[in-house]
């Protein structure tokens, strides 16, 4: 009778709950640290964080970042330092979203957002220019480009959130703020260490964007 057991299995399956998500219409929530496309961040006063040091371009294994630095104009500086990112381009046909550029950046200027659903129709669109990568000068949110599919909340926590949770790469680290504030996000509160019994998931929740806005 084992032959007929298979029929019972397929029959039972008809009444079970589906696990399918109708993707473009419904989406599952994205993991908080998902590696999506990059954003270039600003300080809380609107200054760009990028100093044009080209470390990101140097570390990029896919060679998809092109940066050229330039001296800040004295009367109208773009970044607080001596130099700023004059040209900044990332080719998303090559980027592998390894996050090495984010780790290399000395000023937390480049970070990865959760946005990955873009469908360009030509190669020029695939190369994101500095204008497209830079966050809005007023709200500090990433720019919504026409070929990107966003859902509410997708553009939240695009700043140095990853670093704010564990700046030294040590999961048990907690306490001292060692990162700069960001436009639209403020200064992130340090997260509780993950090995001292505090539920780290809770810490993620309280660490939402804008929580420490000055």
């Amino acid at each position, binding site marked *: 009778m084992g032959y007929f057991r*298979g*029929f019972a299995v*397929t029959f039972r*399956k*008809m009444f079970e709950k589906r*696990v*399918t998500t*109708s993707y473009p219409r419904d989406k599952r929530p994205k993991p908080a640290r998902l590696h999506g496309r990059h954003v270039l961040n600003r300080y809380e006063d609107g200054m760009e964080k990028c100093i044009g040091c080209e470390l990101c371009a140097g570390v990029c294994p896919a060679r998809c970042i092109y940066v050229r630095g330039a001296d800040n104009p004295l009367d109208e500086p773009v970044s607080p330092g001596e130099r700023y990112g004059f040209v900044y381009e990332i080719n998303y046909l090559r980027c592998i979203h390894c996050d090495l550029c984010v780790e290399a950046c000395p000023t937390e200027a480049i970070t990865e957002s959760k946005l990955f659903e873009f469908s360009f129709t030509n190669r020029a669109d695939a190369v994101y220019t500095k204008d497209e990568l830079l966050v809005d000068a007023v709200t500090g949110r990433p720019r919504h480009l026409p070929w990107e599919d966003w859902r509410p909340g997708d553009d939240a926590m695009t700043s140095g959130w990853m670093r704010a949770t564990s700046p030294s790469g040590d999961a048990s680290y907690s306490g001292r703020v060692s990162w700069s504030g960001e436009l639209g996000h403020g200064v992130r509160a340090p997260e509780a260490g993950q090995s001292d019994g505090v539920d780290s998931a809770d810490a993620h929740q309280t660490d939402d964007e804008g929580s420490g806005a000055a």
Partner: protein
Amino acid sequence: MSAVDTAVLALDPLLSGDLDPGIVGIVILKAVVAFTLLLVSVMLMIWFERKLLADMHNRIGPAVAGPFGILQTLADGIKLFFKEDLIPDRSDRAVFKLAPYLSLVPAFLVFAIVPVGGDFSSGDGTVTWFGERTYLQVADPPVGVLFFLALSSIAVYGVMLAGWSSGSKYPLLGSVRASAQMISYEAALGLAIASVFLTSGSLSMHDIVASQVDGSWNVLATGVVPFVVFLVAGTAELNRPPFDLVEAEQELVGGFHTEYSSLRFALFFLAEFMNVITMSAIAVTLFLGGPAGPILTDTLGWVWPVLWFSLKVFAFLFCFVWLRATLPRLRYDQLMDLGWKVLIPVALGWFLLIGAMEVADARGWPLVPVVLVGMAVMAGGALLLIGAVSKARAERLADLERVELEGESV
């Protein structure tokens, strides 16, 4: 009325008197309605199959075109219509173009002989439309069952010629498999049906249904075995899983229709699913009393038989999809073994047993000894068959062993 008239006019009481435009109109109306109904039901069947299969696989299935994706087939049809129509360079062009119609036309024609309604228990299976009495059946040829067998044989030509004329190796392999499978299972199918018309005493579909009134359905009257044989052989005849070696995607790309595209492919697809429906309808007619069932209201009384008929057909369609969702494909030798060594002997033996019982009934012989003698004769036959098969196998194995031993000594 001469014999020729009877055959041509297909025994419909509508046509027994003088012909007038109204009667011609009803005949045309019936043909058009049957044609449209079949097309629409094929469309729904494809949707139903995909949806149910998805349910059984824990998926969602077509969900975008129309409510619950019910217009998916229509969308697919429109897409196929606008696709490029390819004819391979090495194909036999005329035959290549003919083959899809050889598949499709028989599928349509078979449905014409199926009585889809009519009250057989208290009436004679006719309904009265526009003041004329008529069958709910496009035609009722006196050789109905033979007509069905003949058309399903022609459908084999469609598959065979499609594969052969494509001028390509996978379609050819697919069509060789198809013709071997369909021809060998048609024998079992025919023998199972033969039991039915021994019991019913007629080849006309209308009379077969009429002989099954009062719940004496053929599925029991013939003793279930022919019904089971019919179902298995019918599934194989339809090239449905688990007998879909013809189109075994993993081995043959798409089988006999690999080289077909656009509308010609759509015709094959249509024919395939139409055959599923007509085979279910034939099974219901032959074994499950056709439109038989309680008539619950007097007003619109003709609707009830149609409803019962549809429900029974639907149960078969559900089972075909269920089979597809559950069973893996048979190997080719298993398929041939099942057809030739199991189904045909069983169907033939059962046919002879029923024949003996009919003769005993007619001559007034006692039933029990006849059945016992019949069983004994068949058991003897089965033993002889098994003996012959095992002897042949033993000799083959011995030959094999000898060859291997000689190979080693060399």
